[in-house]
């Protein structure tokens, strides 16, 4: 193992663990859905782990991310705990959002995650605004805006890229191109070149293999540092793949995505398996060590699921709380009877 690698062992193992955490979290969430123990649906991030982890590893707690409907990966990579996440997915009071948000709105502001978003493209403005605060207040923080290839069809993204470029904001637009939006392939809904769209605003842009956590992380470290120094904004397109369907219920999907294609990605381009091989080949860790990480994570997840299953739902009286900051119950407030 050469010296640079040696210096970064901690980081490598952390990235491995984080990717495993995402995968294991998702497997558990999927099981909860399949066993009808989870309310609603969720969108699995499995397959895209190298994106969230490679990028978030380059960020500090103070840096912000905005996330999407496919948001568990970003949440975990930015430092969230399983317990509060599973509680949130099950609508429990101890969830990150007291059960009010759910999978599609999970947020973890303590770690700088401004929230998943169920409006495709809906967080592009929010991310840019967080970068504006950073610049105006000289905070030195960077914001990463995660979104899918499908979100490039939303006009607001062009609007905010323009302002980010004009005002040189410390924001990185990270487009996770997983080849599909819902049940439609990207080629059918995106004309021309996605990267050229960002470049047209004078934004320095990159394309990177989103299955290679090291490549993602290298680029991210560089761009985050530069954005912090005022060289932003940047755009990155990350080529990746979702291993599951659009959401947990999207089982019969051969009509829009071939099984061969899926299995090729799963066998050849699994970001975790490939990174594991690399760690082993480079002698950064042994199989036992890596297996131990997986086992630990699995135990952690199992415990969190068990906890969340037993955890209590929010009190009924919470239903009109947190509508307005500074107002305990909104219903009497809006009728003017709170004064």
């Amino acid at each position, binding site marked *: 193992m050469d010296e640079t690698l040696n210096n970064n062992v901690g980081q490598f193992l952390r990235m491995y663990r984080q990717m495993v955490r995402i995968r294991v979290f998702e497997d558990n969430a999927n099981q909860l859905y399949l066993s009808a123990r989870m*309310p609603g649906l969720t969108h699995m991030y499995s397959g895209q782990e190298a994106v969230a982890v490679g990028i978030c590893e380059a960020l500090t707690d103070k840096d912000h991310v905005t996330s999407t409907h496919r948001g568990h990966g970003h949440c975990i990579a930015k430092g969230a705990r399983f317990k509060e996440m599973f509680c949130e997915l099950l609508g429990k009071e101890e969830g990150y959002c007291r059960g009010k948000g*759910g999978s599609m709105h999970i947020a973890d502001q303590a770690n700088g995650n401004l929230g998943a978003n169920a409006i495709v493209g809906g967080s592009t403005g929010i991310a840019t605004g967080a970068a504006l605060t950073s610049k105006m207040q000289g905070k030195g923080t960077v914001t990463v805006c995660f979104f899918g290839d499908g979100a490039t069809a939303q*006009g607001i993204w062009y609007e905010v890229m323009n302002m980010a470029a004009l005002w040189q904001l410390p924001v990185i637009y990270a487009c996770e191109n997983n080849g599909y939006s819902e049940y439609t392939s990207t080629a059918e809904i995106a004309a021309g070149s996605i990267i050229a769209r960002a470049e047209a605003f004078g934004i320095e842009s990159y394309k990177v293999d989103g299955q290679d956590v090291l490549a993602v992380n290298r680029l991210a470290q560089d761009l985050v540092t530069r954005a912090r120094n005022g060289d932003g904004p940047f755009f990155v397109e990350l080529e990746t793949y979702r291993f599951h369907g659009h959401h947990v219920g999207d089982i019969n999907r051969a*009509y829009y995505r071939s099984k061969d294609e899926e299995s090729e990605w799963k066998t050849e381009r699994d970001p975790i398996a490939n990174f594991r091989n690399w760690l082993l080949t480079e002698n950064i860790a042994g199989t036992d060590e890596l297996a131990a990480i997986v086992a630990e994570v699995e135990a952690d997840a199992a415990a969190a699921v068990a906890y969340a299953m037993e955890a209590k739902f*929010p009190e*009924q009286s919470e239903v009109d709380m947190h509508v307005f900051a500074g107002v305990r119950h909104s219903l009497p407030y809006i009728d003017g009877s709170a004064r």
Partner: protein
Amino acid sequence: MTREVTFSKAVNEAIAEEMRRDKSVFLMGEDVAEAGTPFKVLSGLVEEFGTDRVLDTPISEPGFMGIAIGAAMTGSRPIVDLMFGDFLYLVMDQLCNQAAKTHYMSGGKLNVPLVLRTNLGATRRSGAQHSQSLHALVAHIPGLQVALPSSAFAAKGLLKTAVRNDNPVVIFEDKLMYQEKGPVPEGEYQIPFGEAEILREGEHVTLVGTSSMVQVCGEAAEILDDDGISAEVIDPRTIVPLDEQTILDSVKKTSRAVVVDEGHRNFGVTAEIASRISEKAFYYLDAPVIRLGAMDVPVPFSPALEDLTVPTPESVADMARRICHGEHVHGA
């Protein structure tokens, strides 16, 4: 002959029939073609009509709404599929500044015959951005007509009327009802706009329910039956135009009314209907008109909270019972 078909199938049939009848009718929206929408409402249409008339769009609601308007202004009759009613906010400018006003601003020269199909309804554990019932917003804008089918029968009949209407029409379907079956005649029919349906006659109280709340009112009426209260249930079917007369006639007979809608209560649909009843049936009312709508909070994800936010048969029956028993629901 009348068969039982699902709400979803009724919508599908209406579109297929209209597309067969009129070549200028086409369909556009996200995942409407092979996928047939996430709710599978449009399954099979692309197979019959091809991708030239069933257009899968990118995730560009403002954009495809605008395109539909321009297409409608020039001789097409688009049916636009908006996957969730919550995305209405994204098309408000095109819908309300353009579609709704074009005929008027052009002094009657340009028409915008389009149908915007979308949905409403909570309690699917879909969170605050996929559970809203936003029909009040569009009902407020002159130039738009708004239909709220409450059964498979209404879904088909209203949609066919909408497609033939020369103006922009917004239809909200109840997501939770897609799989429910109801009687639908085999043959061609339309349901005129502005004609309420009296689903059940009664003497003591009028329950006006829209969309998802029609069934709730029907169930409330059954609960009330047990208490010896006879409730009349009215479904306006369209809120623009609104069949004021049928509602007023009923209230003049019963002297009491409860208005139920799944949109937020504050500044919502119930306010319009209730205030019209209070104004125009003033001298007939024996009790205040009561409004029930979705609670004025964003829709919470947690099942423990979400179910509290929508009117239920029990809450409707309770209110009806109280005004029938002369309780001052809001004491003096």
